[in-house]
């Protein structure tokens, strides 16, 4: 049994952990859940030897132990797999796995032994990766397997996984869950940090919920549900059920007729005023291409596009925005904002063309209003956007795009990587946009999000729209390419 008692950790004025107790049975999968900033990673860092606690004790099987470094943790059989991989991309899988614990032969590194060892390790745990492959050439899922193998090679008893599914496709995540169950079955302990409640309930035996540095609940996975856990995470009830619009949908505001672009087959799609149309699909099936084609960032190869009744097939980005299109890009740091520009400057984008002179006072005043109205937690509107947390950066993008009451909202992965509170806010904003008569096209890889928000859901598969449904099982089949 692994027990942490009364763990306290302060960073300056911020109390990251305030007397946390955590008890984990050996041979189980134990999830630690909480919003961003709840202290999950800090707590795991204490066990993994990365964070030195200010107070509290760690004991293994009743024996108090001192874990002051990563090496100490390894010595006690505890290994951590980080959210951001720490691999040498130019080295082979085998070299990465044995790094620091290399098999030696005549004073040198023994390639053959290392490869055999990694092969054996992979076979034993169902983590098959070619030991000779270069890590930089592997898929993200395979890179994670290498990280797991490395941790298993060093310390096989207790594995800590920090948000392991954040970068995986659903299929890869499924595979990982199988490995986790198998490791637990072999008597090892898996600690698993996540904020995706559905997967937590799928894979773990026990769940500890953290909120603002304190434990708000410990539940058996079989005796709780997403709703209860979400409530414990944010400290109040969460409204995630689908809410139908009060009024029926109106005239079409976005219309694609046989629209094609590189990476897309001819698409027919209509979004009416006052409805949210969801686009489901496994990542990489044309979501980015579809969004870019609508936004004017990807040249059309055929077909037509109409926004708010205006034919804009070959219009510039500016003309589309003029017609009433708002675009929440899928990657906020790539297209959504400029990190080194100020918050006010980021909020100005798109509306800056009105006059040649730039009125900085008006720009800052409007920015303050938007920051207030959209609850962006920011220091000053003159601060760089890089100072915002992920959720607040997304609120900034939402504020800018929805402020002008657009007729059409193109929202791409709008809650990817943000915590539950911010996601709930984004959802409320999209519903509000629909309720005041905007047509919303929501492209999301998160099926729960689509089911909670969208009035209709279409499925994108290999660049084509293959069907429409609101039934989860049917959607799953469509996403996997089984034509209905």
């Amino acid at each position, binding site marked *: 049994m692994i027990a942490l008692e009364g763990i306290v950790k302060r960073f300056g004025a911020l109390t990251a952990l305030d007397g946390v107790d955590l008890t984990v049975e050996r041979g189980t999968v134990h999830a630690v859940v909480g919003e961003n900033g709840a202290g999950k990673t800090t707590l795991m860092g204490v066990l993994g030897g990365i964070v030195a606690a200010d107070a509290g004790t760690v004991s293994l099987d009743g024996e108090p132990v001192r874990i002051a470094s990563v090496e100490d943790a390894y010595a006690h059989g505890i290994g951590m797999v980080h959210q951001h991989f720490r691999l040498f991309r130019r080295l082979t899988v085998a070299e990465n796995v044995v790094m620091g614990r290399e098999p030696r032969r005549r004073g040198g590194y023994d390639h053959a032994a290392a490869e055999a060892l990694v092969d054996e390790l992979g076979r034993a745990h169902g983590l098959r990766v070619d030991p000779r492959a270069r890590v930089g050439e592997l898929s993200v899922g395979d890179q994670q397997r290498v990280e797991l193998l490395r941790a298993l090679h060093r310390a096989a008893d207790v594995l800590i996984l920090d948000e392991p599914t954040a970068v995986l496709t659903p299929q890869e995540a499924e595979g990982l869950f199988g490995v986790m169950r198998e490791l637990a079955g072999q008597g090892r302990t898996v600690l698993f940090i996540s904020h995706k409640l559905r997967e937590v309930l799928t894979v773990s035996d026990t769940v500890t919920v953290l909120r603002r540095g304190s434990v708000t609940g410990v539940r058996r996975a079989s005796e709780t549900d997403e709703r209860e856990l979400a409530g414990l995470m944010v400290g109040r009830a969460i409204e995630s059920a689908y809410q139908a619009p009060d009024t029926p949908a109106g005239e079409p505001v976005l219309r694609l007729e046989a629209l094609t672009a590189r990476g897309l087959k001819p698409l027919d799609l209509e979004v009416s005023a006052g409805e949210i149309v969801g686009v489901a699909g496994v990542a990489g099936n044309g979501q980015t291409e579809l969004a870019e084609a609508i936004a004017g960032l990807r040249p059309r190869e055929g077909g037509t596009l109409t926004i708010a009744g205006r034919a804009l097939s070959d219009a510039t980005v500016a003309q589309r925005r003029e017609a009433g299109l708002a675009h929440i890009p899928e990657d906020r740091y790539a297209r959504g904002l400029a990190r080194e520009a100020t918050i006010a400057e980021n909020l100005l984008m798109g509306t800056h063309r009105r006059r040649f*002179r730039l009125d900085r006072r008006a720009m800052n005043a409007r920015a303050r209003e938007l920051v207030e109205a959209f609850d962006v937690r920011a220091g000053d509107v003159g601060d*760089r956007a890089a100072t915002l947390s992920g959720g607040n950066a997304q609120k900034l993008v939402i504020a800018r795009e929805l402020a002008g009451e657009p007729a059409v909202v193109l929202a791409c992965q709008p809650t990817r990587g943000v915590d539950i509170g911010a996601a709930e806010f984004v959802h409320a904003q999209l519903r509000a946009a629909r309720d005041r008569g905007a047509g919303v096209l929501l492209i999301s890889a998160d099926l729960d999000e689509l089911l909670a928000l969208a009035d209709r859901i279409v499925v994108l598969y290999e660049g084509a729209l293959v069907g429409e449904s609101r039934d989860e099982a049917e959607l799953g089949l469509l996403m996997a390419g089984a034509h209905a």
Partner: protein
Amino acid sequence: MRDRGFAVGEALLAVAIALAVGALFVLIADDSPATAYEALWTSSVGSTNALAQSMTTAIPIIVVGLGMGLAFRVGLFNLGGEGQMILGALTTAVVGHALASLPGAITFVLAVVSGCLAGAAWAVLPALWEVFLRVPLVVTTLLLNYVGALLATYLAAYPLRDESGGSTLAQTAEIPSALQLPIIVPNTPLHAGLFAAVLAPLGVLWLLQRTSLGYAMRMTGLNRDFAETGGVPMKRTIVTTMALSGALCGLAGALLVMGQTYRYLDDSIVSPQTAWSGLAASMLAGFHPLFTFVSGFFLAALQTGGSGLQLATNVPLQLVNVIQAVIIAMVAVRLWLGRRVLRR
């Protein structure tokens, strides 16, 4: 503005380290760094005359630095400042001479404007290649320097050569007096072009911070995909930026002709490395227009001081090159590191 303070600190650190390295070289050459730096100080800013000489050298450096720096701010690596400056200088000299019969003010305006336009044209060409043919601008601007320099040499040596004085130099005819900028400090070379070197940074700052065009340019420089998604027309912004950048470089050439040489004198720009000093000044200033004025003056003063140093001590002029090289190396490393950090 915390970051700006940090950048200033870094620039000063680079200068301090460069001076220290220079002192080390003086020590190795068995001389006294204190004496050497004192001579450098005296001959660059120690007297009215020295100060005026340094300021005169600084004028084209500052303006061409502003021009190149403007493109860099937008993420366009315009390395063609030299060619754009040469074309500007030649055009101003030729147009000024050809229009000598018109009223002075008209000649003046037309000569300056045509110099700017020539610089702009030499910069727009690679911008169009980049936008429509996807030929990297960083390569074409650099190569156009050679084309521009050789073209100007040919023109000054043959078709446009000044035959009047029986001179054997490759140079064009003298510009009319209406075009010659007045000396503002008597008995020194410092001319009225100083006002341009003071006003141009303010103008660029105003453009970048107080106009929507400047806003679009800055956002393009900070994150091109973001600007494009927000509706900034990318092709037009690239061409406009390069036109403005080239126009400033052309203006620097015009100022050199009107304030110092009074004609296009072959190799008056390439050998003194005026454009490259301008880029170094701009980089040292973190591409900030006002700081470019300060760093441009600093580099010009180093060059002026170098000749005085050689006269007063046994330390060769090359000390100045060492100091400049160290500064440029450090600034380049900082920019490279900054880029790496930003990419994460």
